């Protein structure tokens, strides 16, 4: 099963874990992104995330479908947050559940790596004296 969502409300790891509860599952790998206080030597105050929501959900769904097909996993959750996030808040949660741990890890890493490449979501970093869209310029 895949569970995809984009929300401007705080993400909840316990909820994501409950979505993959299943007695055939023996290993659950997760990735939780958090807003950290530094980026390329500058002090970060907050991050804003903006999504092209319809397309982002579609691309997240493609990642989940591909992961379910390519790796021996039973369930995958991809939840992304939008809006303004403070330090320590969670922009993204990935959960991959499988009978065995190796495919769970592989699917989880594949999902976060691909999400960062293909899903139309943008991140603006706010520093003490300015802001910029991350990765926009070479």
């Amino acid at each position, binding site marked *: 099963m895949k569970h995809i969502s984009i929300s401007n409300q705080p993400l909840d790891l316990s909820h994501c874990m409950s979505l993959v509860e299943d007695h055939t599952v023996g290993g659950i790998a997760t990735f939780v*992104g958090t807003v950290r206080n530094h980026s390329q030597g500058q002090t970060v105050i907050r991050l804003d*995330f*903006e*999504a*092209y929501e*319809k*397309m*982002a959900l*579609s691309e997240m769904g493609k990642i989940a479908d591909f992961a379910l097909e390519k790796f021996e996993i039973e369930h995958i959750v991809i939840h*992304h947050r939008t809006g303004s996030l403070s330090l320590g808040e969670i*922009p*993204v949660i990935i959960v991959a559940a499988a009978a065995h741990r190796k495919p769970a890890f592989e699917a989880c890493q594949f999902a*976060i790596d691909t*999400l*960062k*490449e*293909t*899903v*139309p*979501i*943008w*991140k*603006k970093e706010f520093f003490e004296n300015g802001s910029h*869209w*991350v*990765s*926009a*310029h*070479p």
Partner: protein
Amino acid sequence: MEIFAFGIAKDILKTNKLILETDGNISVKELKIKLMEMFPEFQKLASLKIAVNNEYQEDGFEIKIGDEVALIPPVCGG
């Protein structure tokens, strides 16, 4: 043609929806060239992709009247 813009593309256009006059259909490549002429800031981006009806499309793709077109500057989720 209505074109949705996100992230830095929205800042460059100073709007999240650009109305562009076109003579009938236009390819993704033609659209990119037109935008980079009108808004040279786009030339400085690491990349600029075009999505049509929520799918990335290559340069040769023909955009039709009524398609949902969006400018996708470098993404950075997660």
